[in-house]
């Protein structure tokens, strides 16, 4: 209960702070619309030469693209602002103030900031998913929707874990401002179904750096395609990744010595 109160206080503060930059909403919305229009245009070009891309129809690929933007929006709204701050605080030594507060450091470090304007990506991603599903005339039962949400939560948990693990490296290497680019590098392969990649890359993107579970698997679940892997694996891997990343965070934390000591 206390955790909910803390997080909602952060969220309120973030919204208050960001309403000072209302024009940012317009700017971000504009950029998101362009980005998504270009991505859909790209799909149109690809599908002008084929009716199926590794078994995915245009509408299904659109749903997948929507999932990509949805996750991207969540990352930029809720994950990256908070965790990027950890990197600069550890460098400057002001991470002390996080440790001194009577709240678990991991909770505080990962929920402090919300850049609400990036919700534009979440909304537009949702819209693309909806358009794709309507054009597929998909029959979405309550059960399918529930599984989709579960798989999405698993995917976001995986994203969070990877991001947290990369951030935790700051306790060893200090100067890691750009390390989360590694995430973006892999994540960008998730704009298309993982089936298009050659065997070795597909394995890498499924089991080592599980982008497949972040975009392909959720899109499969809701468009009724044959699943790539057993669906229950997604939340399971998400939970395991979270545990591992939290453990890694604690190990990293024990190495923190503040600045100049």
């Amino acid at each position, binding site marked *: 209960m206390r955790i909910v109160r803390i997080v909602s206080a952060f969220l309120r503060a973030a919204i208050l702070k960001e309403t000072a930059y209302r024009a940012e909403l317009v700017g971000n919305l504009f950029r998101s619309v362009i980005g998504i229009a270009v991505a859909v245009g790209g799909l149109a070009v690809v599908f002008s030469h084929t009716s199926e891309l590794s078994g995915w129809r245009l509408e299904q690929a659109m749903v997948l693209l929507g999932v990509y933007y949805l996750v991207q929006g969540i990352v930029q709204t809720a994950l990256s602002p908070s965790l990027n701050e950890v990197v600069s605080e550890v460098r400057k030594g002001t991470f002390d103030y996080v440790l001194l507060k009577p709240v678990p450091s991991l909770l505080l470090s990962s929920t402090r900031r919300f850049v609400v304007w990036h919700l534009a990506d979440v909304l537009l991603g949702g819209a693309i998913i909806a358009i794709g599903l309507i054009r597929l005339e998909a029959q979405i039962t309550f059960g399918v929707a529930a599984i989709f949400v579960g798989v999405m939560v698993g995917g976001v948990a995986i994203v969070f874990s990877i991001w947290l693990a990369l951030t935790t490296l700051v306790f060893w290497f200090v100067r890691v401002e750009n390390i989360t680019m590694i995430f973006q590098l892999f994540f*960008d392969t998730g704009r298309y179904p993982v089936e298009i990649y050659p065997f070795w890359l597909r394995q890498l993107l499924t089991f080592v750096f599980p982008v497949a579970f972040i975009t392909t698997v959720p899109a499969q679940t809701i468009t009724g395609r044959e699943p790539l892997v057993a669906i229950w694996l997604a939340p399971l891997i998400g939970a395991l990744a979270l545990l591992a990343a939290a453990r890694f965070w604690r190990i990293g934390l024990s190495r923190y010595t503040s600045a100049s000591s």
Partner: protein
Amino acid sequence: MIVRRTTLAGALALTRAELADMFQYRVVLFLYSLWEVVHPIVYLAVWGAIAGEGEVGGLRLSDFAAYYLTFMLVSHVTAAIEIYTFGPMIQQGELSPHLLRPMNPVWVAAARNISYKSVSMLLLIPVWIGLVIILRPSFTITAGSVALFLVALVVAALLSFLVGTTFALLAFWTTRSFSFWEIWIGLTFLLGGQVAPVELLPGFVQNLATALPMRYTLGFPIEVLLNRLDPGELALGFALQFAWLFAAALIVRAVWRAGIRQYSAVGA
């Protein structure tokens, strides 16, 4: 355009300094350049999945491999980074000291551009060679196409630099030059030969891509190298590439003059 000898010496000195500066950030630069490797691989995978054992619009998997491997190098050489290197200088008032020097600050942008690319190219090439071994491309090149390619590549890099500088100069008027830049990036993605070689774009879009400048900063040199163009298309391509270069030079000059007139550093 006549470049004075002192300007040239200054440009060289600037490049040396920027090179030393860039070399400090080699790890970050390596990550940036990996980015330029990932995107072509995604689209190579897309077209490879469609082509399978057959072909798409006359291109086989090995042709796509050659196209996108060349793409990696070309996109690296022609990348416009001025929106990151030059735009912030204007926004944060760091331009002022450079204005006191006896040469145009655009040279600073040029020096950064060249040193960034030299350092990261060194890091990129081993990765690229590895990919050539894995992906088995069929490079359909001839001595003539290599010669013409080098010309097209240099012009593409110049054109791209001028376009990038123009967008960076918008920082004189707006803090949102990034939004405009994103439109350009999006159009280059669709029409410049990134999502697909221009020859695979549907009819009217292909004509649009041929007329607009994006292809001449990216796709055109690749098509030249891999002999994808007949003599008529080649001539038209070079004519349009030089025409756009000339136009871009005029535009960047006009924008610079208009911008500098109403520039006031932060705090003025």
